[in-house]
């Protein structure tokens, strides 16, 4: 691999934190094929990028989930002991309302494997899931329910984690329309 200088790369000086107020998800079992990880990258940039698209099975599509502003976060945690380092990606968010759809989603997600695509506020995407591992529900970091005070808010906070050997950006497409047979 050819090393290059790692500079202060900010687009027009912008570097706002946080993630977009929409994330995308599907069931891990609905994925037909995955983007590929770099195997023999020539550059550092290639070594941090997935190639290709996530393709879903016929009739399946990515769906969106709304995130209350300033409650969404995508964290890349380094874990493992010496010679065994890897990462755990965390997606934390809050969805308001406690409506049937949200309850139904949590009922499904609590013990099933999922895939998420998260967009940060710089327009960069991250894929949580690969052909081996999925994003899994990890609880409600900021609570769930009606809230105690009238000034509070109803809803469900949730956290999903995805364990991965390496960190990548996702540059592929997000199909919001069902896949058709080829």
């Amino acid at each position, binding site marked *: 691999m050819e090393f290059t200088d790692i500079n202060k790369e900010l687009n027009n000086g912008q570097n706002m934190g946080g993630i977009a107020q929409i994330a995308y998800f599907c069931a891990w079992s609905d994925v037909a094929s995955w983007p590929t990880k770099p195997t023999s990258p020539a550059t550092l940039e290639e070594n941090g990028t997935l190639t290709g698209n996530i*393709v879903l099975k016929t009739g399946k*599509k990515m769906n969106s989930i709304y995130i209350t502003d300033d409650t969404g976060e995508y964290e890349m945690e380094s874990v493992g002991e010496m010679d065994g380092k890897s990462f755990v990606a965390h997606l934390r968010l809050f969805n308001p309302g406690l409506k049937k759809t949200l309850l139904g989603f949590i009922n499904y997600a609590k013990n099933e494997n999922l895939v998420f695509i998260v967009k940060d506020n710089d327009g960069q*995407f991250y894929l949580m899931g690969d052909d081996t591992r999925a994003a899994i529900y990890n609880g409600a970091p900021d609570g769930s329910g009606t809230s105690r005070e009238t000034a509070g808010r109803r809803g469900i906070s949730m956290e999903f984690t995805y364990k991965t050997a390496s960190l990548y950006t996702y540059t*592929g*497409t997000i*199909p*919001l*329309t069902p*896949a058709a047979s*080829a």
Partner: protein
Amino acid sequence: MWRRYFKLVKLVPGKVIVQGYGTLDFSRDDIPIETCKALYETDFEFLEITEEGKRALYGVQSSEFEVQSSEFGVQSSEPEVQVSEFEVQSSLNTKRETLNKPRTRKKKQMNG
């Protein structure tokens, strides 16, 4: 309009988020042709070009297009022609060898 030149494949016509282009709704007719062309040229796997698109956007007939578009990952028919020529040559050489062999054997038998 774009549908005259391109065909959406592997997806039901609808919205797709394409990085660098935002959300494109392929159920609508108003996607700029230049956008589709740019996507097609970057190996966007959900668009195929039509015969009319080949003529209008690249100015080539379909048979010419197959050869010229090898740079886009389309197979050229050229290798098949080369293989068949090779097979003809090989076949001729084999026939020549076969014709020569009995004479050699005959001479050996006579000498023995």
